[in-house]
């Protein structure tokens, strides 16, 4: 069996992509671009490389549809992968080793070169079979998703070039599922990182002044951590992580000397607001807490992502409807939820484009960002089968 997999050109192409160490930090995307251009050539599709930021190429391979004026389908994946601690790996993370039992090891197998290759293999198969789709397909390979996508999908999605692609629907990543049901993501929580600075009267540490920074910090920490405890209760009672608002106290700083009342004490919180929350009300609540804490308690955003509405899965987005019916026809269950983390899909949704995260990997232990990230060759190949049906469906809506 192993020999068969190793010699399988479908697996070979995947392995070739995995062997490119496009790993953070300071990635040279040159080899990725060369590889993707070669893929496009082999399939017979035009490729355009956009460099909105020098050294941060965005590779777009386009297959024009029968009705090119219709909005297009974007199949998005990122080329970058997160760092590795090689000593913890059973097989080198950039050698794409296949074990006797069929596991393909490599950083990016799950997150998300595997998904990008499923896109490419699907299109290769359809085109080779002489199929023509109604809508145009753009396969997009972007840099720097793992560091926030600022110089990648964020800039690209806001560009004129992106508008010209006339995207009507986008597929991006989700995560592997350890059961035989698929996981889809239709939205993300809103990431907000804030720093609250409590100013107070300076003075000697031996007194009991009122209006001290310490008292204000006490109030603020209590408010946030009480809310955290409430949300944690929801999680402990079975709510999905994507449906609860998470709060974490991540940093504290302030004070000059152990016996001196500080003028400033500050505390930072990482907040992920669940889609169900009224974001404006949430901000007002923080403002109110700061007021209640006392004079001169101010908060600033370190990160303030705008609220992005989830892609609707209530039947009003036809692309989702056909995905669901297609996989269900194959006898596969698909569960759609809010992504607990953040992906490039949020930038696409921000432009008003419906986007679904879909990494077609069932019965797979999720190892995104972990050691020994791997995928079984059969899971990968079945993913291509499912992707083929999905692309046929969404591109013919």
């Amino acid at each position, binding site marked *: 069996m192993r020999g068969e997999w190793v010699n399988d050109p479908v697996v070979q192409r995947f392995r070739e992509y995995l062997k490119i160490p496009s790993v953070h930090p300071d990635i040279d995307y040159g080899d990725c671009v060369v590889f993707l251009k070669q893929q496009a050539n082999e399939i017979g599709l035009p490729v355009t490389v956009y460099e909105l930021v020098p050294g941060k190429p965005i590779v777009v391979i386009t297959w024009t549809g029968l009705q090119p004026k219709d909005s297009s389908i974007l199949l998005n994946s990122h080329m970058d992968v997160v760092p590795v601690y090689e000593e913890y790996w059973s097989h080198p993370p950039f050698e794409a080793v296949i074990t006797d039992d069929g596991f393909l090891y490599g950083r990016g197998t799950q997150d998300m070169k595997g998904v990008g290759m499923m896109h490419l293999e699907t299109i290769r198969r359809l085109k080779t079979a002489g199929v023509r789709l109604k809508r145009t397909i753009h396969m997009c390979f972007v840099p720097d998703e793992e560091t926030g996508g600022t110089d990648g999908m964020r800039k690209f999605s806001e560009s004129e070039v992106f508008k010209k692609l006339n995207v009507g629907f986008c597929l991006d990543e989700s995560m592997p599922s350890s059961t035989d049901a698929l996981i889809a993501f239709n939205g993300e929580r809103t990431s907000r990182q804030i720093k609250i600075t409590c100013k107070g009267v300076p003075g000697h*540490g031996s007194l009991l002044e009122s209006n001290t920074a310490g008292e204000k910090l006490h109030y603020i920490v209590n408010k946030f951590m009480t809310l955290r405890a409430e949300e944690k209760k929801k999680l402990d009672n079975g709510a999905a992580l994507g449906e609860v608002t998470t709060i*974490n106290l991540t940093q504290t700083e302030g004070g000059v000397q152990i016996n001196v009342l500080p003028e400033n004490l500050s505390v930072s919180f990482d907040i992920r607001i669940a889609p169900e929350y009224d974001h404006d009300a949430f901000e007002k609540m923080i403002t109110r807490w700061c007021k209640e804490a006392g004079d001169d308690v101010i908060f600033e955003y370190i990160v303030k992502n705008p609220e992005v509405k989830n892609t609707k899965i209530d039947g009003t987005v036809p692309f989702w409807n056909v995905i669901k019916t297609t996989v269900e026809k194959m006898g596969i269950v698909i569960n759609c939820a809010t992504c607990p983390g953040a992906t490039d899909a949020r930038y696409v949704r921000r432009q008003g484009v419906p986007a679904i995260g879909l990494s077609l990997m069932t019965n797979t232990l999720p190892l995104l960002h972990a050691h020994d990230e791997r995928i079984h060759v059969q899971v990968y190949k079945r993913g291509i089968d499912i992707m083929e049906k999905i692309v046929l469906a969404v591109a013919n809506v």
Partner: protein
Amino acid sequence: MAAKYEDNAAVANFVEYLKIPSVQPNINYDACVTFLQRQAKEIGLSVKIYEVVPRKPIVVLTWPGKEPSLPTVLLNSHMDVVPVFENSWTYPPFSGHIDKDGKIFARGSQDMKCVGIQYLEAIRILKQSGVQLKRTLHVSFVPDEEIGGLDGMKKFVLTNDFKALNIGFALDEGMANPTEEFIIFNGERSIWQLHVNCTGPPGHGSLLIPNTAGEKLRYIIDKFMDFREEQNKILHGDSKLTIGDVTTVNLTQVYGGVQSNVIPEKLTAVFDIRLAVTVNHVQFENRVKRWCEEAGDGVTFEFEQKNPFVECTKTDASNPYWVAFKKATDEMGLKLDIRIFPGGTDSRYIRRVGIPAIGFSPMNNTPVLLHDHDEFLRADIYLKGIDIYVKLLAAVANV
């Protein structure tokens, strides 16, 4: 008015001392030592310089008593002063400028170069009047009180040189008081400064993992700050109490965390605590231990400073020096207000080795400006203080 004090030798001496910028940090005490050596010579006192730590001189001027084998009286003051923000001063802080109301402006005018010179001026008067006291007086001038006295009085009290001084009673600094009463300090709270380290598993900021450093820090801050509020209520619930009578807690520093989206492995809160003299130290430490345990695994505390329990100096008939002190002030018609010192002074080191010590700076009707901008002392208050010491020293040294 200023002209009135121009020719006053006691004021001139005070101003000269104030002009020496013996200001923290990194003080060169040479000018102080030279000045004090000259004072000793002029008054006719012997002088000895102890350098327990190099460049940290302890200057002791001695006036032998009639019965030199009796325990002596120590008159202590510190030579150093706290830093200044010169821009916030009306007159330069090391000018000793005397304004038309007779206010002498300088860093150290209240804390506490005044007291050091007043001791000397009182002795000068006593000596000039031909008096000899029963007990020996040692007038000590120590370094670095303002930074905790670690290289000054704290070390000095443990030396054989100090033991050889055979001290039975000490006077040290008190504090100004805006009303007519003079404040007397007979004890200090114990300073406990500690870092509480809250550790927990690291992780991504988008998760809600249990047992995080942040949750523990919250618990710790809660406990300490709630206790602070209790003490604050006690203080404000009884008009007779002053700050020295309650235990104070202040959150003075916080640190920890690596990135705003990463759950940190460690967060630390730093508290400055002053234990009231009535607090049982063992019980209080157990309470802190319990809070840490309740906060969760991996919550520990470490002391940056932990003062031991020190008995207050008795202000009753059991302390003959106090009886003499009280009698002298009663005779002068001075109103006294006995308190526990809110901060820390070198007196604690003296009391720690079993010597009764009273903190007293003769500055009534004076706003409290120690460590503040525009620190000043009115010349008339200063001169009145010398007269007070003339009586006081005679009283306590004749016990």
